[in-house]
């Protein structure tokens, strides 16, 4: 029984760590540019299918190379999308609403593009590491351990980037006071684009990591998006640490609910959790203003 609890908990932690990556990406863009990207889940789908494509095209493909290809690809993809959609819309009144509609449409478009190019059949990515490792009587998949390690590296790397580098500091500055950033002479549009690019990379990496656990489907991104959305709302929109904590709270909850009651109860439980927090803290756990 105890061992079972441990392994449920361990699975919860790995799932949480992947959720943390997407949720942080979604929250980062919202925090900096106050744009909510509804196509975000489809970005994860694109990342996962790109990885699949790389593995099916080249026999010698491995994950380090796949990641090295994916990061610049997703970054440029994100920059291009930012330039095409939120940027021109932001010039007009009501851009908050128009970007919602436009990114939602983009999400549908991308999911269908993936369907058109890759077909409706589910696909699977190779595991990051094969076999299991035993710690005491608890057995853990290598795949999940590698996911956890990669996720920690990504989150720590991102936090260091935001804290220590000048460009990361500028991103935080725009998030905290955009008027102040303008007065200082920051190139706000560049910072928006950069943030969008980084968040797209995070979505792609998350899609890849989740693709080693679950099958890939063209519309699978929507589930990721809805989960990321709930996590961001629970953690507080715009807050990176909030998204991190919320991802772990909800990810571990998911793992326990899945085991005890079954997968269909996961979202109801998330919903209850979200409502309970929002009643007392309408801005989420660490929401700003």
């Amino acid at each position, binding site marked *: 029984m105890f061992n079972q609890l441990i392994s449920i908990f361990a699975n919860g932690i790995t799932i949480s760590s992947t959720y943390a990556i997407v949720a942080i990406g979604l929250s980062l863009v919202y925090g900096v540019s106050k744009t909510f990207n509804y196509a975000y889940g489809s970005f994860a789908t694109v990342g996962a299918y790109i990885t699949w494509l790389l593995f099916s095209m080249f026999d010698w493909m491995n994950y380090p190379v796949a990641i090295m290809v994916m990061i610049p690809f997703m970054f440029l993809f994100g920059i291009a999308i930012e330039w095409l959609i939120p940027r021109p819309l932001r010039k007009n009144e009501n851009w908050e609403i128009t970007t919602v509609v436009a990114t939602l449409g983009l999400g549908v478009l991308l999911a269908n593009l993936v369907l058109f190019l890759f077909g409706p059949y589910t696909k699977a990515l190779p595991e990051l590491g094969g076999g299991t490792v035993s710690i005491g009587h608890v057995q853990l998949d290598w795949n999940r351990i590698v996911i956890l390690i990669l996720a920690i590296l990504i989150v720590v790397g991102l936090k260091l980037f935001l804290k220590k580098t000048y460009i990361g*500091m500028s991103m*935080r*500055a725009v998030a*905290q006071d955009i008027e102040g950033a303008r*007065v200082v*002479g920051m*190139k706000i549009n560049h910072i928006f684009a950069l943030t969008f690019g980084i968040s797209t990379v995070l979505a792609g990496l998350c899609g890849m990591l989740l693709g080693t656990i679950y099958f890939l489907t063209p519309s699978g991104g929507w589930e990721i998006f809805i989960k990321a959305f709930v996590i961001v709302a629970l953690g507080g929109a715009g807050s990176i640490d909030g998204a991190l904590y919320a991802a772990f709270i909800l990810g571990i909850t998911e793992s326990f609910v899945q085991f005890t009651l079954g997968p269909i109860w996961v979202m109801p439980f998330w919903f209850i959790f979200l409502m309970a927090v929002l009643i007392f803290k309408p801005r989420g756990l660490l929401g700003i203003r």
Partner: protein
Amino acid sequence: MLKVDNLDTFYGELQVIRNISLTVETGDLVVMLGPNGHGKSTLLKAICGLIKPKAGKVEFGGEDVHSFSIEKIVEKGLVYIPEDRRLFPQMTIKENLLLGAYNPIARKEREKNLEFVYQLFPKLKKMYARTVATLSGGEARMVAVGRGLMASAKFLAIDEPSLGLAPNLRTELFDKIHQINKAGITVLLVEQCVTEVLDYADRVYVIEDGRIVYNGNKEEVLNDKDVKKALLGIE
């Protein structure tokens, strides 16, 4: 250095600036006085390129300010310090100051400018790791002025720095602004009717209902009894 020509500015239908012309010479400290809500801040923002005027022209160093983006204007050394400061609240004093040096020219002179700011406000050097949200009004003012200086400013446009400060802090801040001016930076200062600032001013403009109703140098203001009484309430 700065030349404003027949400027008109509107907020929607409402005309806030009515045909204002003024000049600021290099190295001067110019004070613009006037009651609240009479267009001083709007004028300052229009001068710094943050608001597009309906008509008229602002020239800085012979170039039309409104033909440039705000980034470019800051890079040219025309820096606006807003009345509500607009600092980055969750960051430290030092981070705020360093972010002031965003433009490429200022980035090269970052160490030198930081040294100047710390020398001017030794308190900021001592408290460099404090989060800005925890600062008092006076301290936050210093950070705002410091952040402006970090942009390698040649011309500082400061919007009501004394707002909400106790009289002794106000005097201290004006003294610092005077020091900044003596270091060779041109200053355009917007204030409500504050007498102590006159001691440092090379030239005074008085703005009322969006128009300049008086302009003169310090001696002229102080010698003109009517003006002195009407505008400053002193005998």
